[in-house]
């Protein structure tokens, strides 16, 4: 088997700006005023260049990454959020440039970093198939040849000439996947896209990808939080931690290292955090989010059950009765969207031992796809604050089939999902 991808000493540096301004982009005004300021500084002879740089911080999203991929390999890339997985994929698909190192790729690369990139809501299904195909790198002739297959795969024959803005989200995802599944590059790069869509369809897509890979010797690089998919689908796996390659080898080993690392190597550093308030007689030491099988996870699915397990350290031998804990969940706009507070449910929490944990079971997680932050608050009788930490962790809800219909709700409009029933009634007119 020949080598198709060679990555050597790859690194990517971002400059983080620490500024009070909210704009994510540079305004000309700032450049002009910064320029004027530094000019003024030079004229005044205080030749310090550091003053401007103080607001910036270097951040290496990837560092010293080297590996080789052989033809026909199916590589699963795992790691926590922010470990650098997506940055790696972005460099491999030439969307962004590396800061150091090099990559050599042999063959045509198609990248699928998002489902339905470039879909236009006003265009019909038919038009979007052509557009999306072209965006993903297919030629018109190729799309034409595969058109019927794509429509078949997506199961949307009847709605081909309807604008996709009228599609249900399930149909939308299916169509987007169908186009992507019929790509025929030598190398396919896929980001966490299988998290959307219903389970059955996910299976169909994985099957299709596997088919393409085994029968036609295509290479697949695949990022996922879905360990089951990684285990069953991939021939090799890369574990990335903190921008570096932690392990490259058998998927099962990578997965178990991933969980080890998460459980012991890095317990969100809660005990050491100083940005906290409260008396400190009880301190939070750890937050684990476990799925229904008891596996620790940092990506959650809407509609699944989770246990939030809070480790604590009590600094006295006194038994504390009527402890109240609150888990407050904030969305990406820092709006408090959910609050799990133990006295809402009259749950009497009693802390006896010096070390222990408090668990909170949340069934049927009602959060839509998105990034959330958690604040934790622990008090005695809801009067004395023992410990309060803002922004304990950031967790990703990657979507999921909350309603059992394939719909994920509309996370950009509303973060809370709840089941509802609908019916109609006729009013008799006199």
């Amino acid at each position, binding site marked *: 088997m020949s080598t198709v991808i060679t990555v050597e000493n790859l690194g990517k540096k971002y400059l983080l700006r620490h500024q009070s301004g909210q704009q994510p982009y540079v305004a000309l005004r700032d450049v002009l005023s910064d320029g004027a300021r530094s000019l003024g500084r030079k004229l005044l002879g205080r030749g310090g260049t550091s003053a401007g740089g103080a607001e910036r911080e270097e951040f290496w999203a990837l560092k010293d990454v080297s590996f080789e991929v052989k033809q026909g390999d199916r590589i699963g890339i795992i790691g926590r959020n922010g470990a650098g997985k997506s940055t790696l994929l972005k460099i491999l698909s030439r969307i962004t440039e590396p800061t150091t190192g090099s990559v050599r790729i042999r063959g045509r690369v198609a990248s699928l970093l*998002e489902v339905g990139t470039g879909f236009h809501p006003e265009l019909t299904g038919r038009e979007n198939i052509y557009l999306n195909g072209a965006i993903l790198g297919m030629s018109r002739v190729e799309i034409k040849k595969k058109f019927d297959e794509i429509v078949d795969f997506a199961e949307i024959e009847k709605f081909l000439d309807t604008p996709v803005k009228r599609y249900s989200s399930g149909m939308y995802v299916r169509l987007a996947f169908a186009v992507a599944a019929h790509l025929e590059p030598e190398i396919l790069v896929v980001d966490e896209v299988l998290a959307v869509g219903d389970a059955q369809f996910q299976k169909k897509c994985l099957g299709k990808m596997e088919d393409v890979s085994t029968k036609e010797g295509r290479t697949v690089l695949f990022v996922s939080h879905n360990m089951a998919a990684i285990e069953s689908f991939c021939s090799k796996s890369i574990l990335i931690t903190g921008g570096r390659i932690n392990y490259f080898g058998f998927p099962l080993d990578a997965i178990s290292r991933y969980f080890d690392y998460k459980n012991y190597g890095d317990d969100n550093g809660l005990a050491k955090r100083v940005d906290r308030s409260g008396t400190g007689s009880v301190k939070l030491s750890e937050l684990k989010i476990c799925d229904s099988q008891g596996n620790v996870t940092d990506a959650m699915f809407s509609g699944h059950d989770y246990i939030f397990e809070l480790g604590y350290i009590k600094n006295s031998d006194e038994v504390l009765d009527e402890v109240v804990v609150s888990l407050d969940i904030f969305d990406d706009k820092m709006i408090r969207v959910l609050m799990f507070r133990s006295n809402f449910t009259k749950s009497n929490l009693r802390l006896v031992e010096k070390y222990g944990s408090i668990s909170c079971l949340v069934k049927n997680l009602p959060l839509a796809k998105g990034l959330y932050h958690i604040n934790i608050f622990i008090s005695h009788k809801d009067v004395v604050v023992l410990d309060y930490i803002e922004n304990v962790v950031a967790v990703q809800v990657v979507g999921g089939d909350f309603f059992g219909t394939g719909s994920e709700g509309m996370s950009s409009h509303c973060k809370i999902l709840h089941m509802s029933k609908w019916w109609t009634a006729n009013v008799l007119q006199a």
Partner: protein
Amino acid sequence: MEQPEIIIRPGMGALHYWRDIWRYRELFFFLAWRDILVRYKQTAIGVAWSVLRPLLTMVVFTIVFGKLAKLPSNGVPYPIMVYAAMLPWQFFANSLTESSNSLIDNANLLTKVYFPRLIVPAGSVIVSMVDFLISAVILVGLMVWYHFVPDMRILFLPAFFMMAFMASFGAGLWLSALNVQYRDFRYVVPFLVQFGLYISPVGFSSAIVPEQWRFLYFLNPMVGVIDGFRWALLGDAFPVNWSGLALSSVLVFLILAGGIFYFRRMERSFADVV
């Protein structure tokens, strides 16, 4: 089987950039096609807009400059004189507006797929070109109405159109790249377009510009383009100031070359910044 090897290294951009542009030509057409398709969906009169806008502006200019201010039109019907200039100007103005926002409007594409970014603003210019061709029909209508027959010079029209195209594309490249970096340009462009309309000979003819201002006046590259259009379409009544035209052409060329250079340099960081 051919197995092209791609090498990704910092600071290199894409090695085979121009070859890539050729390879991605279909995407280029698809993006332009999408913009044209989407543009008039859910509008009541659809494509008629691209006819209506220049037509109404022409009527207003004819009344204000021709009838009220009584500016000379050198024997050519005033509406035809205005419209002959309105065509390239609208093309330029639309291209500028569309392409300056094009990268930001396609931000989701820039951050998710690779392709030579140049095709995004280029697509916007093509869309404006389609508008140009549609509104050109009105000019033919006007000429029939006024029994005005252009002479052989019309053969030079494509050359001036090329010039308009290069000016639009060059300026579009500059503005689109700057807009990614500094969103301020979002506010600059409408002003630029409005201002440009007054300093370009759209409502009047270049003949009324006083001699001492000529040099400054010709620094606006659209002056050369518009004068060229009038000369090619309307004939001797609008002689071309050749040195002025040469100056405009050089400027157009510089804008385009500079635009490509700047765009290529900024392009690498688009995905990180946009």
